[in-house]
């Protein structure tokens, strides 16, 4: 525990979806199954990933740029995917080492 570090915990979601124009086999598979479910009127289905995470950072801007780097570096393959960052609620001031956020779920 390092009591000097003061950080705020922000929560974000990163939504990663197939780039427009790129074949989306998952979306196609789900779409083709709709008749079996007897659901009419649904279409244009795209299936991607959603990554939810929390970040400890001095301010929202810093937090967001961290998430953006993670998305660019790891979560999204720009050749076939595109991503969008979505801020989530649940902001809380934390006092302590910034290596902690895993804590909650760990």
């Amino acid at each position, binding site marked *: 525990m390092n009591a000097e570090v003061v950080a705020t915990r922000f929560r974000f979601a990163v939504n990663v979806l*197939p780039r427009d*124009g*790129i*074949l*989306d*086999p998952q979306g*196609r*598979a789900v779409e*083709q199954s709709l008749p079996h479910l007897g659901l009419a009127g649904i279409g244009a289905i795209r299936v991607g990933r959603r990554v939810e995470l929390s970040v400890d950072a001095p301010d929202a801007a810093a937090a967001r740029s961290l998430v953006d780097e993670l998305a660019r570096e790891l979560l999204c*393959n*720009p*050749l*076939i995917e595109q991503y969008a960052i979505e801020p989530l609620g649940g902001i809380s001031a934390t006092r302590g080492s910034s290596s902690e956020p895993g804590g909650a779920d760990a």
Partner: protein
Amino acid sequence: MSATVVPVTAAVPLHRALGLTDEELEAIAGKLGRAANDLELAMFSVMWSEHCSYKSSRPLLRTLPTAGDDVVAGPGENAGVMRIGDGWAVAFKIESHNHPSAVEPDQGAATGVGGILRDIFAMGARPIAVLDALRFGDPADPRTRHLVNGVVRGVGGYGNCVGVPTVGGELVFDPSYQGNPLVNVMAIGLVREDAIMRAAAPGPGNLVILYGSATGRDGIGGASVLASATFGDQDPSKRPAVQVGDPFAEKLLIEATLEILAAGLAEGLQDLGAAGITCGVSETADRAGTGIRVDLDAIPRREPGMAPFEVLISESQERMVVIARPERLPEIAAICARWGIPCAVIGRVTGDGDISVIQGGLAADGAPNPGARELARIPARALASEAIVFDRLGVPPQRRRRAPAPGTPETTADPLPERGTDPGAVLLGLLGSPNLGSRAWVSEQYDRHVGTNTVGGAGHGAAVLRVKGTRRALVATTDGNEAVTALDPYLGAALSVAEAARNVSVTGARPLGVTNCLNFGDPTRPESFWQLREAVRGLGDACRALGLPVTGGNVSLYNEAPGSAIAPTPVIGVVGLLDDVDLLVAPAFAADGDVALLAGATGPGLGGSAYAALAGLAAADDPPSLDLAAEAAVQAFVRDAIAARTVTAAQDVGGGGLAVALAEMAMWGGRGGRFRVAVPGAPAVALFGESPSRIVLTARPDDLPAIRDAAVGHGVPLVELGIVGGPRLFVELVGEGATGAAEGRGSSIADALEVPLADLRHAWDHGLPRALGEEV
């Protein structure tokens, strides 16, 4: 033309943006008797790409031996086909997907598997196996690890889902592949000899039916740019859209295709890969001496607003074209519907020999609708068989190593490291090295059993696939020796053929034929083209000497990252036939008390060996020489001995030399042995040298006389190594070079190699995962 790679500007005219030279532009005008319009240029650009036209390699490939009694279809078809008896034939082919995999390893490798599978079932064969020959740079490099993981995921993800087992292949690490990995995939299929399909479009009036996935903007320009421009630009926006594979769609495509063929509904069949519909229609029409009128509007699209050129050269995956008589359409449509696959009539076979692209639709009789426009008209042969060909300049490099002439006495001073080196430690180093360690980390990510034909579960030596309903089995392998090819392309290619065939022969199977993938650099560089020319010469000579027809293959050029070409890499695929699977011999010690023998003479030369790499002597020595007659003899000998049921285990001497061969047979058999190896000169050569044409085999003591007679009959030198059994591998070194005498000449090697099986196993099991950082 925004989707093509280089933006068109005043400085960069369209044809160059499309990758065509001014010379090619003129040739095109010559073929048409007029200037080509933009759409026609785009079609030429993909068909005249190196990938589709083989414009640099075709003159060389013509020199390869392709004839053979059992050859049913050779080069020129989607895959080679050879007779195996009982009315069955085997279709096989290897293909590269190097550049797509460097850009997007997972999808690049996946679509590579999909593409080669389509070549197999385009022949009417049901795919029964895949082998993947992979080459990467430094395994410790994060980028390499990313590529390895992605490629393995891609190969597995696709093969596992379509239900074709991945039963073998290679994984090699060499610094020269750092910026340009190699992903070569070989596929094998079974087909009744009387049911083989041709990729031709006969019969004017016949329908051209496209079935499978809808056409999107996938891999636009891929054929002309992605597959043949020097690779290096990292800006994604500058790259053509990556093709994404859908193995489930491919599974449906396989089943629908085989049903269509079984019902006798097809006059011709072609898979759509590089250059998409343009390639499919021009090659099939050209092969039949016909033409095709393409109904552009009828092609099902995945996206709105696609330009005609995008539709015609798109490399959207999982699509096939079937040529059929009009009255067959309903049955074909019904089969596609049953498998949930869209299908559409996208054109008509004509008698005029031209590929004609019509916008505005075709009437019921196949004629263009009134008011329809013809967007392009090109003679089919101008796009396909009469595409431009170049006689490139080839010049050997200044520095160059040659193998010593066969029989040259050994000159090598013992290059083992400092005094007192324990050969056991060297052996463990080799077994635990990234290139010689167990491949389980890869093969366990592949479904190797689906189809319930994989004998022995795959993993040791060549892959064995029984043919249900017969006593026969097919044996397949891929091999490439980039290390020696880099020193001497002729020798390296010949060695690769020899080793691949040897791997098949040691199972008892008779090698049937060869498929090959030539991975080389920029053919416009004289040294690079010389390498290609020499390798093809070595490939041809080796195949002639071993009586193996070349039934097909693939050429991948421009394998260069900025500033560095890869080690030239001919990958050889061999398929063999075992008439009775009960005769199969495994490369594992079978029983205590068996006698181990070495067939074939050990020659000098550590150049290009795993030992040389380990000892840091990579370029410091000559490669071993190859005597093709001796190679043929030793393989014939082992096959005969196995057929006579006198062999209990057999393994060829390959990477790591005799010591590694013995260690593998010991590990895989769960029993060691006490052996003596004659050391006339350098112990390193005797233990770890990779001179070819050698096989270790074991036999029951009472079968020794018969085996000796067979060896004499084939003129193959045969020496006794020792007795199988015990918990450790013990190799005593005797003769001139060993101990005392060796000490005399400053040798440093201990007088015996002794390692417990458990230690061999541990080194071998963990080498690869450790190298990749999967284990610490």
